[in-house]
């Protein structure tokens, strides 16, 4: 054991029924560095970190912190020994305040009572220190995901930990917030903290990390200094094959006929005003905007998931009501939601149930009983065509890695044979290889003559696959741009139009 290694994990293995999630993985992190952990969905990144943090019990292997062997039995032990972690899936007490969440598990006491004053004071200090402006007394569920994410990061930092693990912390942060986070991380690095940073965003990794460890299929593949390795090389090591383009060729043809026409839609309870646009058959329409610009609201209003105040929707010239999701599905709409865990997966049910739930009518015999064989065929089709990595169709969906969960949900929607697909952040938390597959899929769907709306915070993605980009600003449509001629600055400028 070398002393100057802050963290050393050797020979870590972990088996789950059906998968060897980790196979003798090693990881070494030096003090005062940011260490990126990369790999495809399901490579085992989160599992490795959960073994460190005591969430999972490793089958074998050893962990050393500053040369001393440790084996945490639970999160509390890990935190007390200087290891903090921001989980990929936020676990927060949503009905409690920000302050309560921050101090959960270590409430300051005054005699037998919780010392609210001290809590408030120290919360302010922590937030001030990190330049975060969030109301400490706000109820967690009222905050947007990005702010909840920041609270979680602040919490990890506030433990004064030696090692901080961030599992895809930026997946729901806006560009400004990412910059903010990076300032915090650099500051922590100055102070000698070792940071493990998991992300699928190449540009971020290049910008922030000092070293990179790459995993594939539960195995350690390489560890390199960031400046010594190119993005193409990283991708090659992650995917295990050459992947020369970030985006597939656009083979879809935008037709003249209008598939969907949205006229003056406004939300009743949401920040969405008079949004109008057309979507052509075979078209991929991107929707760009800053956090809170009303992009999700636009999709959910169209889909009848939120109550509309006014406006009309036409599908192939016919007005449709889309009163609620069920109605919208019947009309040929599909909505891939932004928050996979909250509104996407049926965690405790298996892949099959998760795949067929929106298209059950198709598997009925005599209009009465579900046909197991038909459902199985549909599920296998989805698993094959979307390349879902899963031990079987009977696996609980929550046991899959985030990217694979996403593919299952996309499969669910494809089985409803929609005419219009509304995709809200379809590649959030998805690795480069799988992203490419999803782009291919989106383009293929458009080629079949469907209309696709893609909301994304990743501008390169919008520029790479869309035929047209709609920019939203503060609940309104600010303008349209042609991806072939526009650039990120132009998009950003439009996005700030109504601020």
């Amino acid at each position, binding site marked *: 054991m070398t002393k100057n290694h802050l963290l050393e994990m050797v020979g870590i293995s972990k088996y789950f029924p059906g998968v060897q999630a980790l196979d003798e993985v090693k990881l070494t992190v030096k003090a005062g560095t940011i260490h990126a952990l990369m790999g495809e969905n399901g490579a085992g990144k989160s599992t490795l970190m959960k073994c460190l943090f005591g969430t999972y019990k490793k089958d074998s292997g050893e962990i050393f912190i500053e040369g001393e062997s440790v084996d945490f039995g639970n999160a509390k032990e890990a935190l007390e020994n200087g290891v903090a972690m921001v989980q990929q899936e936020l676990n927060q007490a949503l009905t409690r305040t920000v302050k309560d969440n921050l101090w959960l598990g270590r409430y300051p006491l005054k005699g037998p009572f919780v010392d609210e004053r001290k809590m408030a004071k120290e919360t302010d200090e922590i937030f001030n220190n990190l330049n975060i402006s969030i109301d400490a007394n706000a109820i967690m569920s009222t905050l947007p995901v990005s702010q909840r994410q920041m609270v979680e990061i602040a919490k990890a930092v506030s433990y004064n930990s030696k090692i901080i693990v961030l599992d895809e912390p930026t997946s729901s942060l806006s560009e400004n917030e990412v910059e903010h986070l990076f300032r915090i991380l650099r500051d922590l690095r100055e102070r000698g903290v070792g940071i493990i940073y998991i992300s699928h965003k190449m540009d971020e990794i290049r910008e922030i990390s000092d070293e990179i460890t790459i995993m594939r299929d539960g195995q350690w593949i390489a560890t390199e200094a960031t400046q010594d390795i190119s993005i193409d090389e990283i991708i090659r090591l992650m995917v295990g094959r050459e992947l020369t383009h970030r985006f597939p060729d656009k083979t879809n043809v935008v037709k003249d006929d209008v598939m969907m026409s949205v006229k003056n839609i406004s939300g009743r309870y949401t920040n969405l005003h008079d949004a109008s646009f057309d979507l052509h058959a075979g078209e991929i329409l991107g929707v760009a905007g800053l956090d809170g610009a009303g992009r999700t609201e636009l999709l959910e209003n169209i889909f009848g998931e939120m109550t509309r105040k006014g406006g009309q929707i036409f599908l192939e010239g016919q007005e449709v009501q889309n009163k609620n999701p069920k109605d919208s599905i019947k009309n040929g709409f599909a909505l891939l939601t932004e928050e996979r865990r909250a509104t996407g*997966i*049926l965690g405790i049910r298996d892949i099959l149930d998760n795949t067929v739930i929106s298209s059950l009518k198709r598997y009925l015999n005599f209009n009465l*009983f579900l046909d197991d064989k038909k459902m199985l065929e549909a599920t296998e089709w989805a698993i094959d065509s979307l390349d879902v990595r899963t031990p079987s169709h009977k696996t609980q969906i929550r046991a899959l890695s985030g990217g694979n969960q996403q593919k299952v949900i996309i499969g669910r929607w494809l089985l409803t044979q929609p005419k219009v697909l509304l995709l809200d952040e379809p590649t959030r938390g998805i690795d480069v290889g799988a992203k490419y597959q999803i782009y291919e899929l989106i383009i293929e769907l458009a080629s079949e003559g469907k209309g696709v709306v893609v909301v994304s915070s990743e501008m390169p993605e919008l520029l790479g696959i869309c035929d047209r980009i709609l920019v939203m600003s503060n609940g309104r449509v600010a303008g349209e741009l042609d991806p072939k001629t526009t650039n990120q600055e132009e998009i950003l400028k439009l996005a700030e139009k109504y601020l």
Partner: protein
Amino acid sequence: MSTEKVKKNSKWSSEQIKDFLINNALILIMLVLVIYVTATRPEFLKPTSLINLLSLTAAYLPVALGIAGCIVLTGTDLSAGRVVGITAVISASLLQDITAPGKMWPNLEPPPIALVLLISVLIGALIGAFNGFWVAKFKLHPFIVTLATQLIVYTFILLYMQAGESTGQAISSLTEDYREFVTGSVVGVPIGGGKTAPIPNYVWLALLLAGLMWLIWNKTTFGKNMFALGANEEAARVSGVNVFATTIIVFALAGAMYGYAGFIESARIASNTANTGANYELDAIAACVIGGVSFVGGIGSISGIVIGVLLLRLIFVALPMIGMDQNLQFAIKGGIILLACALDMRKYLEKK
């Protein structure tokens, strides 16, 4: 490489054995109990004793089958017992023998049995739908809603007990046809020596009911929707599940089961008071959780429920046979519930 494979395989199988033991712990306990009781009291395996066990299981099964759906939706139903009660007294009052002393409706010619069964099931379904409506429409927790309806229904029972010519006495002297329909035996089982042991009709009916519920749970869109709703309401809604309708149907179906149970219990017990059916929900909930219908929501199976009910009845029947103090049975029931739920939760914990 190959040695590594072997190592993994053997580890896997030992894990498997452990998992198998834990996942089937309750069935194993049941087996041990049966073997022990049989060894000490061989008459336990006699047809009469087994049929008694079977009959009791059949009597308690319908309520459990109904309540299970509510638990799958992460809810519960505290009104089950009272719904059994009100449908039992109504069934009994309609099917009192014309010569019964103190007959509630003296001039009422007993209507066809099937009609009374239908009325009973409909009343149950209606009360269930009422529960479901409050849950679905106002997003109230089923615990609260059914706590309230349970009280309301009890008042209706008390009022009904004083209706007609009734003096508030237990409603008894039911028609022979009715009793025969429920407790008579159309089909028995041969037990050798040319003899057949009679199996009460309500056992066969319960079996039929379990089959029906299995179909509904596993083979219909409603069943899939119910599980989806229990697993993640928001996701289910976005996926096109009609949350409102599904919730109401789950509760109405449960109510229909209680209505059926009331009809059966009325004839099985033969003497119905305002307290008929009281606390049936507690046994039913216990049976469900023992059988793996999880309060986590979205999980459960019909076979599990049958096993849960059977295991509970086994304790009631078997323990007195081996001379265990009757009073202990409650503590043992409590212990089993704790054990069953702890084992059940273990499956859902991430860390193993």
